[in-house]
């Protein structure tokens, strides 16, 4: 399965209309490209496992 606008560089891909069977049939390059964009978007070396620990850090 190909995506109509996979060349667009901004915006997480919307997969909510796809079933698990559809997901399994996705083109490998589409998945790889979407993952790459998502990781790049976080910036500053942070990845999608980033955690935020800044509440009341002073004490």
């Amino acid at each position, binding site marked *: 399965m190909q995506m*109509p606008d996979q060349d667009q560089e901004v915006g*997480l*891909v919307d997969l909510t209309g796809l079933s698990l069977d559809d997901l399994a049939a996705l083109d490998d390059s589409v998945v790889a490209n979407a993952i790459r964009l998502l990781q790049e978007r976080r910036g500053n070396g942070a990845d999608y496992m*980033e*955690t*935020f*620990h*800044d*509440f*009341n850090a002073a004490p």
Partner: protein
Amino acid sequence: MAGRYRLSTADLRGLVTGRDQLAVLRLLRTAELSKHQLFLAALMREVAQTRSAEYATTLLPAYQLLADIEKREPKVVRTLLASSQFGGWVSDCLRHLTSPVDTRSNTGAPLATDLGQLAVIAATAALRTGRPFDLSVPLRHGALTFPDFGTAYPGATTAWEWGRARFDTQGGQVMSSVSTVQIPATTDPPQSFGGDWSSITRLTTEAGGLRFKVVLDDRDPFLDCYGIDRAPVTADGLVIWQRLLDQTWDILARGHRRYATMIAAVVRALVPLARPAPMRPVSSTAASAFGAIALSLPDDALTMAEVLVHEFQHGVLSAVMDIVPLIDSGDSLPTYAPWREDARPVGSLVHGLFAHLGMARFWHHQRGSGSADEQLRADVEFARWRTLLTEAAEVLASAGVLTEYGEEFLSAVRSVLTGWQDQTLPPLAVEYGEDLSLDHRVRWRLRHLAPDSDAVHSLASAWRRGSPPENALLGLNRIRECVPAPPASRNIRSYLLGLRYRNPAQFSCWVKRPGEQAPDLRVDAADKALLTGFYASAARGYRRRIETGDDIDAWAGLAVARRHTGPARSARILAEHPEVAAALQRTLRDNPRADPDQVVAWLAGPEPTADQPTSARVC
């Protein structure tokens, strides 16, 4: 056919300015589901290519079971895929599989065990829908936790033994080499503690007609992702959590309706954390676990409300950043963030700004509510964060690290802050806020900024010659790298500077009888003088501490004391260049005239005469 998520600048501004954004939150929730689906697709492909045996025996059967259930009960499967537990699992496994360096799984389990969690997730969907199944499942120290459901404890002979889970006409069962555990027939069993089955702990509260329902998840292995130990919930602890949440929800649902509505729409799990130290509450949000907030048991309902708003903001912005880029991916220099002990990349200020903006808005709305002590607390927090956020926004604005969306975001943040500038605050609130902020900033500068050594030697030579200092030398410094956070117990004065307005009664006990509060901690005479307003006495004590050795806390204390006593120019040096004063004083330590106050006064230059303008405010 699949498209892409888009977030308009109006939506982005609405999130920042605090407008009711339920429609945007719905979009963010579905976007996070899409992210989980994408990760699952990537994970399946990666495992198929690199671990074909596990793919065939574990992942594929589980995936096919989920896909079959989805055909009849799509909502059940979608809910599971969208959950923070699923997000934590799929993110952790994917990172483990694809990282160029050998990262350790968050769970500490073998990768095969973690990958096998998909079978547990499929089993959960099957149990919820009454679909017969029989799957091989990974146990963890003899236990098996079904996400958002409960834990079976069949026991095991090894830590990572594999058992079986099944559902048939006999009901649900989990089997190990040791025993078989019967799973309750209901899909929402009552909470239970002990025995071989423990249902997940749920908290439900309602105020002002608004309900908030969450799990208190102390057991899902993939919500153990915050780098802080979790705190197991006991039956007694559950009562305390429920009572505190009831009080908190009363504050939020009645006084902060928009936040309460948005939190109720997004947050599905609270993860109880253990405090690293008694006076050090913690909370956290993970980009991989949208809808989960991790927190230690807060001291009071106001604090819990503040934490929920703060961490909710982190979760929302993290989801936003999955859709639109706010920060350019280029490197940026580390800088001061008033909410952190370490040095942070400038771009990371985006997250802190958004989270603390929510907090500041909470306190802004909270002003004038409750007892006199509670009103002072709201005033201090609002005063403090209004100032710190304004400064941080300026740093971010000048850093050149934002994308077009990021600039829009920052513009909205600044418009909110501008709207707050004309709010009049009680002087005591401003003073308490500035003391705490100054203490933090000075300690940070001393830990993270290294003055240029040639500049320090030039200053020392000038001192010895009796010449005035060269002001240009003051600003020459660089960020030290990889400075670890200080032990919690070292920062007891900072904690008390906060406690004096957060809980005046407890503060009073601390100052009068510190040994009774925590036997292993002490407040020394200088700190006690500072905390009780005897600033000249505090300054003398800090000078003595500095003269006997390097003492970052003493320099910070001296800065706070001199903010109150003056001289104004010395106070400014201590606030703005404490790392230079400390380095110079260290260099001159053998000189009998080089007491800290004299070094600072020399760096500051002569005080203006009465008819010359001066500026005594330094932070």
